[in-house]
């Protein structure tokens, strides 16, 4: 012991040779801030069609390159090219276009409704519509969804009534959630759409549990879940990947990398060190990185992951590379932290425009029909809004009954304290 003590002291005597340079902390910064020109020169988008499509039976270890590549189908000319081009008919693509346009029109209207004081809060999904729309159409309607808060298009993809969604935004008497939840935190068991949490990332590992249950029970339904680039930093993301890999859970783990987590660029979540998809590599999960503004690429990648899940080959991690065109929410002001011209310079384009051009190229769509559909969507949203407002908004009209406030805390009959508090409240 005494000898070892001497050795330790002797080693301590000369620390200067070992490390004489002062250590420095690196804090990542985005390429541009307000007042500067947006700079996306670091983003290298591979040409559409160049990324290989492995067989769905491939082992995760054989496809590490896909976590660093980018699946793209639609090229600059509006053509669908390469091995990932899904063989889907024009009707399905038109449906996708319609849902994306519906989502954007809905978002615009609800955002304005918040600005008019008719509700407290809203979050748009502008620019990211292809991610939930294509996935929603690729999955079966009986598959389970564990969304984050920017996948409202999933509900449209499942033909969920817009009026029902607006009633939730307004917390009015017909809100199925009885006015309890912040606007956009939808929930519908009937639609297979899990109740959205205001706490980030929690759904990601829950989705894995649902998928494990489906496997335990010998069910045929699979599950899909979504998380933002920022929330991959939460522990829940890592729990999800571990469980999904260990148990080969039939689940699709979607990371929506829209570049921004409120004011923090994706580098704060580690996105400049390695693509988010690459996190799957360490867990032994097959991981795809996909152009999230390319409806066909998202559809094809989801279809590939669905096939794996349905054939007991387990989970897939998909990073959707996209861009949040608007602020985080109505409480946010992106002009304070990012370059003003980012939206114009985003190299991934607009998902609606890209699918539209493709359909036109195929001779399955034209400008006249597009304009007519745009007008139709605006009218649909406006008419539905009128119906919703006839029921009530957060500020006026019919509200849920206040006594519902005390319901659903527990199942069964209210206990002593709840009975007493209800009496005090006057019911």
């Amino acid at each position, binding site marked *: 012991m005494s000898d070892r003590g001497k050795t330790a002291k002797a080693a301590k005597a000369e620390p200067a040779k070992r490390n004489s340079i002062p250590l420095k902390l690196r804090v990542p910064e985005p390429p541009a801030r307000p007042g500067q020109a947006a700079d996306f020169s670091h983003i290298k988008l591979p040409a559409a069609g160049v990324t290989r499509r492995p067989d769905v039976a491939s082992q995760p270890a054989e496809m590490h390159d896909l976590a660093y590549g980018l699946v793209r189908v639609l090229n600059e000319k509006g053509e669908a090219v390469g091995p990932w081009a899904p063989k889907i008919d024009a009707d399905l693509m038109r449906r996708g276009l319609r849902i994306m346009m519906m989502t954007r029109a809905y978002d615009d209207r609800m955002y304005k409704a918040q600005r008019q004081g008719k509700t407290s809060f809203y979050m748009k999904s502008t620019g990211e519509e292809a991610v939930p729309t294509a996935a929603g159409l690729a999955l079966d309607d009986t598959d389970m969804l564990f969304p984050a808060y920017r996948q409202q298009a999933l509900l449209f993809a499942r033909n969920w009534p817009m009026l029902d969604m607006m009633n939730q935004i307004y917390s009015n008497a017909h809100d199925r959630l009885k006015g309890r939840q912040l606007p956009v935190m939808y929930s519908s068991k009937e639609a297979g759409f899990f109740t959205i949490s205001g706490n980030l990332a929690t759904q990601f590992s829950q989705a894995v549990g649902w998928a494990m249950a489906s496997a335990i029970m010998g069910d045929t339904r699979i599950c899909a879940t979504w998380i933002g680039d*920022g929330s991959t930093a939460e522990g829940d993301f890592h729990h999800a990947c571990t469980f999904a890999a260990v148990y080969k859970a039939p689940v699709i783990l979607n990371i929506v990398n829209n570049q921004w987590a409120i004011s*923090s660029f994706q580098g*704060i979540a580690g996105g400049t060190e390695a693509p988010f998809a690459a996190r799957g590599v360490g867990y032994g999960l097959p991981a795809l990185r996909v152009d999230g503004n390319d409806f066909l690429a998202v559809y094809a990648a989801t279809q590939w992951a669905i096939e794996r899940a349905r054939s007991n080959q387990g989970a897939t991690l998909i990073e959707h590379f996209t861009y949040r065109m608007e602020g985080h929410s109505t409480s946010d002001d992106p002009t304070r932290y990012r370059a003003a011209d980012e939206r114009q310079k985003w190299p991934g384009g607009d998902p609606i425009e890209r699918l539209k051009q493709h359909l036109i190229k195929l001779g399955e769509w034209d400008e006249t029909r597009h304009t007519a559909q745009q007008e139709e969507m605006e009218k649909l949203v406006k008419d539905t809004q009128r119906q919703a407002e006839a029921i009530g908004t957060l500020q006026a009209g019919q509200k849920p009954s206040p006594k519902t406030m005390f319901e659903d*805390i527990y199942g069964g009959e209210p206990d002593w304290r709840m009975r007493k508090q209800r009496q005090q409240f006057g019911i």
Partner: protein
Amino acid sequence: MTTMNMIQAINSAHVTLMEKDPKVVVFGEDVGYFGGVFRATEGLQQKFGVTRCFDAPIAEAGIVAAAIGMGVYGMRPLIEIQFADYIYPAMDQLTSEAARIRYRSGGEFLAPITVRTPYGGGIFGGQTHSQSPEALFAHVVGLKVVIPSTPYDAKGLLIASVEDDDPVIFLEPKRLYTGPFEGHSTDGVKTWAGHPAGEVPDGHYIVPLGKANVVREGSAMTVLCYGTMVHVCLAAARETGIDCEVVDLRSITPLDVDTILTSVNKTGRCLIVHEATLTAGFGAELAAIVQQECFYNLEAPIDRVTGWDTPYPHVFEWEYFPGPARVGAAMKKMMEA
């Protein structure tokens, strides 16, 4: 002295602390370039550089754990959890780690961290942006729990918290950020300008932890409260005309028991008001202490007015919020007892 709202006072506390001590480091979600979603850290990165005020990944457990590590090194991390409702992923690091490091290391290692977090309702935040979790932290020995009710107290208490060697949960009543709020949902926006506690010294001062503030002297009953409820209780006292002694606890751990007992022994009545849910809320602890220590001086049962035992419902913000009407009714009932 400068007229400040609570955000500005908290920001001023940061500047004061960071200028005085290079070991004070600030981080959290959106706190760097943007300056925080409530603007509490605005300008700090520009003034002190990116290694003293920076954005953190969205990982509350990671934020608290990293702060503990920095504290163990000898720094004084002052971190932000964006909403108190988001703090739960960090519970393990707070309860099993920050709170126990001094004890389990025989006093050798410390976790001198301060965790700022906006809490409470009144902004239509729904159940994930409105909670009042103070009792959870008060239950954890080793943590201190501090709750200001004015800009002056916010700055002085925050400086005292950061300069304290123990971990502090610093709960900021977000409804009070821009002005005192008496709890009438229909009231227009009132600013801190003109309020005596909106006058804040520019430099260093502390409001000591564990020293309650008698914000209104009175003889009819003692009202124990903190945060937003201080202003609600003052309004209820004024509206009912009952001569209440309103005690702003300022910190619930450590608790200024002397001030509480002196007041209740004088008035013989005790009403406790908090926004958090009733059951196992901090009011239960206060009631237990008061009944044990003041039993023979009490002229009426101790009563509590609190949020209902439900999650904070979005549309029923004002039905849930314990406003001056409910507090005033309890005051009247107590005087009839």
